[in-house]
């Protein structure tokens, strides 16, 4: 018996005699994915930039641009003959617009107008007529002129030729925050996709870890797949957080199915993962890839309609704007979230993303350097 009990002790001395375990086909992939997720979780900066920062941005912009009741136009009446009468006419007009009215001397009125304190200056000519001084390039100024003119004409006895009524609308779905959240989601998928893949790869290359990995029988495809999978996991969390913020804080209405939104998110994550891979395929240093990455992302920050509609750009630029992958993603996300457009009606956008992602992947795999 004592002999049998000694056997384990002896086998410790000679490790080779111990039974080896066998790894299955996907052991490498699983471990790479787990390692990546652990590293991300343990990196406070990543958690902040990927998850917290977009929420703060949405919150800040959502509050800054929340819909306010239209402000009363602010007008100055040049003091002198006819000024008190003008003021009385405006205040007593049957046309129910409200104005902030100051009576000022000429110089003060002009200065206030220049500084944006007044939208319009009214100079009574003393014979019952008025001169408006306004700036056609300033929306508020144009509006104030129209409203003041209507009020004065009505007070002087003009009758409306046609009866009209107006209904005001600021329902969820058409507010700035509704526009913003899908845009931020798209931008976040781009940022974290490019950085999450590109930065991670160059960092590992710089640390010679990629070289160390290819010195093992690790399947290279599994490595890239694991990196991409980690992006997909993060993507789901990013979508969940931003949409929850929209729904619970800003009472946003999500019309599209969650499934189609996640599918779009996945398309975005893969597209920008591909771009990140391409950007990082040869760079040896973090510094060089950072510059390259910003160069790739900059046009999309500006043109892809994250914070404001790209319709504001000249028509000439529109084809260029439309073929950017982030434009396609933002448009698709907005259509899905705000209008409930099914994915089957969005194939041109999906095609744009697919092409960008696919071509980037193909090129990246050709150029990729492990050492």
């Amino acid at each position, binding site marked *: 018996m004592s002999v049998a009990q000694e056997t384990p002790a002896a086998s*410790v001395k*000679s*490790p*080779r005699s*111990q039974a*080896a*375990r*066998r*790894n299955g086909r996907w*052991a*490498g992939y*699983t*471990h*790479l994915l787990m*390692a990546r997720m*652990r*590293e991300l979780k*343990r*990196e406070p900066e990543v958690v902040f930039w990927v998850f917290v920062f977009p929420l703060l941005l949405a919150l800040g912009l959502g509050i800054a641009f929340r819909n306010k009741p239209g402000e009363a136009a602010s007008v100055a009446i040049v003091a002198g003959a006819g000024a008190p009468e003008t003021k009385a006419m405006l205040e007593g007009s049957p046309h129910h617009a409200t104005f902030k009215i100051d009576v000022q001397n000429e110089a003060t009125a002009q200065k206030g107008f220049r500084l944006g304190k007044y939208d319009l200056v009214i100079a009574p000519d003393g014979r019952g007529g008025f001169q408006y001084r306004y700036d056609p390039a300033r929306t508020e100024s144009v509006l104030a002129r129209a409203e003041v003119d209507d009020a004065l004409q009505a007070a002087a006895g003009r009758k409306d030729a046609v009866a009209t009524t107006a209904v005001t609308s600021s329902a969820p779905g058409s507010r700035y925050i509704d526009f913003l959240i899908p845009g931020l989601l798209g931008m976040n998928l781009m940022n974290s996709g490019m950085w999450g893949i590109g930065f991670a790869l160059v960092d590992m290359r710089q*640390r*010679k*870890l990629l*070289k*160390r*990995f*290819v*010195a*093992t*029988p*690790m399947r290279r495809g599994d490595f890239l797949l694991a990196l991409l999978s980690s992006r997909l996991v993060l993507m789901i969390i990013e979508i969940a957080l931003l949409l929850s913020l929209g729904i619970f804080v800003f009472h946003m209405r999500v019309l599209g199915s969650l499934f189609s939104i996640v599918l779009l998110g996945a398309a975005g994550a893969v597209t920008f993962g591909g771009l990140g891979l391409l950007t990082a395929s040869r760079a040896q240093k973090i510094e060089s890839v950072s510059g390259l990455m910003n160069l790739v992302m900059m046009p999309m920050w500006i043109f892809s309609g994250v914070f404001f509609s790209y319709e504001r750009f000249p028509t000439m630029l529109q084809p260029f704007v439309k073929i950017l992958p982030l434009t396609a993603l933002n448009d698709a996300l907005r259509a899905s979230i705000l209008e409930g457009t099914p994915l089957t009606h969005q194939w041109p956008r999906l095609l744009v993303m697919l092409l960008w992602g696919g071509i980037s992947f193909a090129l990246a795999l050709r150029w990729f350097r492990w*050492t």
Partner: protein
Amino acid sequence: MTIAVQCRDLRKTYDGKVEAVRGLSLEIQTGECFGLLGPNGAGKTTTIEILEGLLQPTSGEVSILGHTWRENKRELRELLGISLQETRLSEKLSVRETIELFASFYREPRSSDEVLEQLQLTEKADAWVGKLSGGQRQRLAVATALVCNPKILFLDEPTTGLDPQSRRQLWDIIRAFQRDGGTVLLTTHYMDEAERLCDRLAIIDHGQIIAEGSPGSLINRLGGHHVVEFAVSGNSDGAALEAWRSLPSVESVREDDGMLALHVKEPHLTIPALLAAVAMRGRELQHLSTRQASLEDVFVQLTGRHLREE
């Protein structure tokens, strides 16, 4: 004995101009611990990475365990344990997670616990890699190489920058691996490491092997096993060097940093004659010491330079 690693007329030219390796041939037997010894920039890393299949040679043949890299890449990778000169493993993973990760790449790895114990890392198993000391990191690097139960272990400067105790710990681990039948190829620029650890070694300079053999035989080639170093007042010249050379039992002379070094077979014959000669010329002895000849002396004799410029 079978041949574990073989290469013939290896050449590597970087970017068409830097000739890092120029015609290098090696044969390493199974079960041997073979060292590549050479100064900075000699081409050690380039050579070992070509043998590891990580670098494409400009020309030359490599065969590992009878296979070439072209024909059998994945199968060969299962059999080799590799530690690169400078890999920074992920700092935010624990020691155990790192070993498990590397283990997952192989078909039949060893258990992580066993590797942790062998490398004396059990205590640190749950510590993050970023929190390890230099010696512990280096042991972890070797652990990631040993986790696959390799037939050949490639180590590129495994002990550079480590304190003496950590170095000795690693030597023990390497010796244990070799005792179990493993083959080791390591590079180093520490003489004492090469002398104590390696069965055979090749001294490399400017991408070529300038001497090869067991540490003992290389030192034997110097002629004398002992080195007598001394300094005398007054200037020395070529004629004076010749005079010292003719002292009894002296095999060779060199001047080194104002000091004269004699390679000597039997110091008890040389030293009295040396003292007499100094006195006869009316010079004054300013320094005298004797020591065992080392690989450093071999290198200095072959190249006229020291291995490490400190």
